């Protein structure tokens, strides 16, 4: 028997007031404590899905479930949902409201009605997790884009959600910062936090994720485990998506008999290790 997904949308339709149909009969579940990457072109409905998962938007039809229970939209239920599901949006300047990083990070936990001591501890822990402790005294506008992005992540981490959703977290980050972000996400994963992440970077997705979902025009076009490389090979070209380069190189090497095993490596490092 399959475990109940921690978050699930069932048969969800969503249209914006201007008539744009963003999601169409979308059904998709996210398993607890797994790393899921959501792929899809701009406008495929990724951000809309995230807004639904956090209760920021209400589906026109269908329902959103947390732990198998449909989300209600009264104040108390929404507060419960948002305590357990945290979303980091794309643009940091649209999320940081305060000129002080520390104040901004304390905003979420303060809304949880925790004691001041507890809020203080959580803020410091979240700042340390994203490596911002040393910069927390500086005003928000004096930080770089990557630092602001990390501040946004800290603001959500401080609420200690069970599910962390990140909308294109690596957009605009340089490679070392992306690596740092990845190690942070892996730490959270080890603590059994469910991480859902949207990106355009297919190689990154396959190097990191357990599960891969592809959205296309508001519908689910692919949902599988990242290791199922044959299914990816069957589906991705038809969806107009590039396959990860390690998969293609693996196939070529396999054809020539230069690599052992029947499963492609996940990353450059693994590929090189297997070639040695």
């Amino acid at each position, binding site marked *: 028997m399959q475990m109940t997904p921690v978050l699930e949308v069932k048969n969800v339709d969503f249209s914006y007031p201007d008539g744009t149909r963003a999601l169409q009969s979308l059904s998709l579940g996210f398993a607890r404590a797994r790393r899921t990457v959501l792929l899809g072109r701009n406008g495929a409905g990724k951000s809309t899905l995230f807004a639904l998962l956090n209760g920021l938007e209400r589906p026109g039809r269908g329902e959103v479930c947390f732990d198998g229970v449909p989300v209600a939209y009264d104040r108390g239920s929404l507060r419960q949902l948002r305590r357990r599901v945290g*979303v980091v949006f794309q643009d940091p*300047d*649209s*999320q940081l409201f*305060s*000129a002080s990083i520390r104040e901004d990070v304390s905003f979420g936990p303060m*809304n949880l009605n925790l004691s001041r001591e507890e809020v203080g501890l959580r803020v410091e822990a979240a700042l340390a997790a994203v490596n911002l402790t040393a910069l927390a005294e500086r*005003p928000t506008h004096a930080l770089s884009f990557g630092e602001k992005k990390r501040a946004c992540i800290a603001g959500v981490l401080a609420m200690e959600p069970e599910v962390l959703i990140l909308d294109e977290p690596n957009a605009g980050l340089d490679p070392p910062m992306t690596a740092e972000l990845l190690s942070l996400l892996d730490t959270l994963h080890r603590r059994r936090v469910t991480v859902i992440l949207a990106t355009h970077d297919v190689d990154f997705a396959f190097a990191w994720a357990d599960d891969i979902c592809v959205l296309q025009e508001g519908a689910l076009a692919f949902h599988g485990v990242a290791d199922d490389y044959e299914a990816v090979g069957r589906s991705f070209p038809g969806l107009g998506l590039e396959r990860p380069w390690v998969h293609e190189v693996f196939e070529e090497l396999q054809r020539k008999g230069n690599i052992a095993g029947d499963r492609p490596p996940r990353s450059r490092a693994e590929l090189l290790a297997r070639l040695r």
Partner: protein
Amino acid sequence: MLFESYAYSNRWRLLHPVEKGLLSGFALIAALVAGSKLAALTVFFCLAALTICGAGIPLRVYLRLLLIPAGFLLAGVASLAISFGGGDIPLGTLPGFDLSVFLSQTGLEQATLVLARSLGAVAALYFLALTTPMTEIIGLLRRLRVPTLLLELMVLAYRQIFVLLQIASEMRVAQASRLGYATPGNSCRSLAALAANLYLRVHNRSRLLHRALVGRGYEDELRWLEPEYAYSSRNLFLITVAGCGFLTLALLLPV
């Protein structure tokens, strides 16, 4: 932006904001009620000295910042000193009008007093602005029981000023790189487009910000953890002495 960077980097950054606010408040009141030029100027020089020698703001920077209100001050003071139609010292007549311009003795007295008071008040406010970041000044106002709505507006407005400036400067650069400001005509059109676009962008941003705040549990009040500072009884004592000194001077010194 100059205020900003010094507010975060001056030597007195970590002093309790209430202490700094108290001193600034005492000095401000003393400057505004000062009956004599001497008292007001004392406040000005004391606070300027504290800002420069104590908090370590470079003299040149301080003088440059004083130039900002200088224009307003001189214009205001000139209008007090000059009178039309009658006065003690004639300055001449306005060509084309049948009006004589005079400098009046009382007007001059009044003008110099106003100038001295304004300088004292400016020094008091500059002391606070140059030693205390805005977020802490807002924390200070919260202690003074300023209504929450007003404080939230201040927090949001203050942050958004920088966002707005950044968007505007990025848009301007993008326009300039496509010759948007090459001719006066282009400049007019570009500036109009920038203003219209800026409005839309800011509107969109505020929508996104609201959504992000709601996602973090915002209901109807912005709440955050205030940083904690230690009071220094020595400082409080010195500030009270200085404050009482200023007020005594202001009230007792003969005109």
